[in-house]
């Protein structure tokens, strides 16, 4: 009797400990989000994937009129920069004219949800605060973003105790295999805006291109019947897929899904071949999957395990009239449009 009471006590302690972990993890992530939006910082980090290391500079600051300024620069190879002044994001890439779009998100090695509303992730992920360790000569709090199902990867974040900023990030499979990591090599937080950003504030970004919104969300003839819990349609369209200077562009139906942290693209097009065995490659945590089944070519790209990509690809089916799930998803996409 006494023993069972003791166990009950132990159990209640454990439960409260777990919730405490989750709460502190959430607090840490919220602090990260605030720091990424409000601090003037200048950092360097290295993305390690595919046995390669890519170094980046990342500057962030608050300019005049509380406008956020941000620069991502890849330091090796051809220039690949992301510049942001408030809502205007410019991409400078080697094989393209520089362009700007109006967006609150920045496509960079750092997932943009970390600056946004972290609680959006709670549908698909659990937050667990694990413990402290020393990263970049600082005291770091390890927070794990753990997928609730087996269809996604897990994310480990080491957050600076002092500033709340990210010091290290790792993407792992459920089995604990490391796929990709970001290691910060330098972090500097200042009261004042750095000189670089001071200059950047005065430069004019490339012309903002207006995307033809009406072309988006066109009725498609294919739909995805299965997606992991929490994924919603971000957009869908038909466009031409440029297959590497061969001139044989092909029209694809395209759908983009997101669970907040991870984006998954699905491409569908009829093919002349009847069947092609699944082929895939991965770039760090990003899986690229492609197969032809019954004359339909399906491509799936995203930071998801192979099994998930395969399952999504196999769930492609012609759009049936009155399909509730597909319509529901599509309406979410349209609402986000407005």
């Amino acid at each position, binding site marked *: 009797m006494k023993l069972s009471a003791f166990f009950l006590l132990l159990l209640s302690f454990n439960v409260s400990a777990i919730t405490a972990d989750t709460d502190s993890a959430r607090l840490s992530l919220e602090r990260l989000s605030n720091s990424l939006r409000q601090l003037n910082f200048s950092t360097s980090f290295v993305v390690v994937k595919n046995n390669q290391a890519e170094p980046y500079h990342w500057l962030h600051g608050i300019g005049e009129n509380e406008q956020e300024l941000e620069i991502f620069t890849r330091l090796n190879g051809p220039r690949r920069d992301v510049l942001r002044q408030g809502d205007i994001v410019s991409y400078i890439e080697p094989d393209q004219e520089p362009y700007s779009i109006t967006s609150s998100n920045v496509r960079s090695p750092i997932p943009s949800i970390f600056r946004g509303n972290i609680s959006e992730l709670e549908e698909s992920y659990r937050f667990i605060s694990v413990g402290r360790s020393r990263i970049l000569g600082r005291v770091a709090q390890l927070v794990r973003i753990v997928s609730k199902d087996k269809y996604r990867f897990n994310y480990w974040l080491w957050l600076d105790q002092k500033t709340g900023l990210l010091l290290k990030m790792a993407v792992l499979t459920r089995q604990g295999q490391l796929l990709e990591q970001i290691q910060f090599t330098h972090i500097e937080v200042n009261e004042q805006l750095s000189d670089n950003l001071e200059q950047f504030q005065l430069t004019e970004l490339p012309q903002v291109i207006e995307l033809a919104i009406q072309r988006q969300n066109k009725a498609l003839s294919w739909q995805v019947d299965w997606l992991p819990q929490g994924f919603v349609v*971000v*957009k869908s369209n038909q466009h031409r897929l440029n297959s590497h200077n061969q001139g044989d562009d092909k029209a694809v139906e*395209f759908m983009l899904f997101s669970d907040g942290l991870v*984006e998954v693209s699905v491409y569908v097009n009829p093919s002349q071949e009847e069947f092609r065995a699944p082929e895939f*490659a991965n*770039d760090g945590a990003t899986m690229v999957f*492609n197969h032809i089944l019954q004359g339909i070519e399906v491509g799936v790209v*995203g930071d998801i395990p192979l099994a998930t990509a395969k399952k999504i690809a196999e769930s492609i089916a012609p759009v049936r009239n009155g399909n509730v799930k597909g319509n529901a998803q599509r309406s979410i996409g349209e609402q986000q449009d407005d």
Partner: protein
Amino acid sequence: MSEIKTESISSLVDNYSPSTDDSISAHLVDNMLKDEHLSSTWQNYHLIGDVLREEVPQSLQLDLSETISAAIAQEATILSPNSSMQNAGKNMHPATDEAVSMHNHSEGQHTNRVVDATNRFKAKISSLIKPMGQVAIAASAAALMIVGVQNNVTDNSTVTPSQVVQTIPLSGYANPVSFNVQSTKTQQSQQSKQQTQQAMNEQLVADRIAQQRRLQALLKDHNQQVKLGSNIK
């Protein structure tokens, strides 16, 4: 040792090279041709395979090779005097028509002795040539076997035609063949095999490049779409 050999033969029969090194399988074929036991193993394995695949003919002739070798031996002896007769200028059918030969005998009785003498001389020559001919037959038979095996390796869809060549366990007869001929044949077949392999490799490389292009295009478009996609929110 012999167990390893029989195992290798088994895998050879099953269209697997017993080793990645082609020279070893060439040695194996050589050994098989020399060794009575191994060649009978080869024969038996094929028979087992045929039974399993249900490709055994209606009347099962277990030792086809002996009958054939006997038949060839018999034919060889008849062949040489006949050809010499033809060479002697007699317009005679090789299929020893008795009436014609009788007529022939009565017509030129006295010349027959001369012919006989030349015949004897030619017979001597032919007896010299005969083993060569046998070797040639054996060599071609061995080559046929190799071709049959090669065919089987490269193309499974044409099993039925090559089966005709293949079911004859010619190795039983081809034992005494000087493996000089054999080895050049295998070298040739290896060369052709290498060529086909090279062609296959090139095909594979082309496929891989095409695949990489496809996947690269998808990845690139994904990254682009994610950038633009953030526009919608």
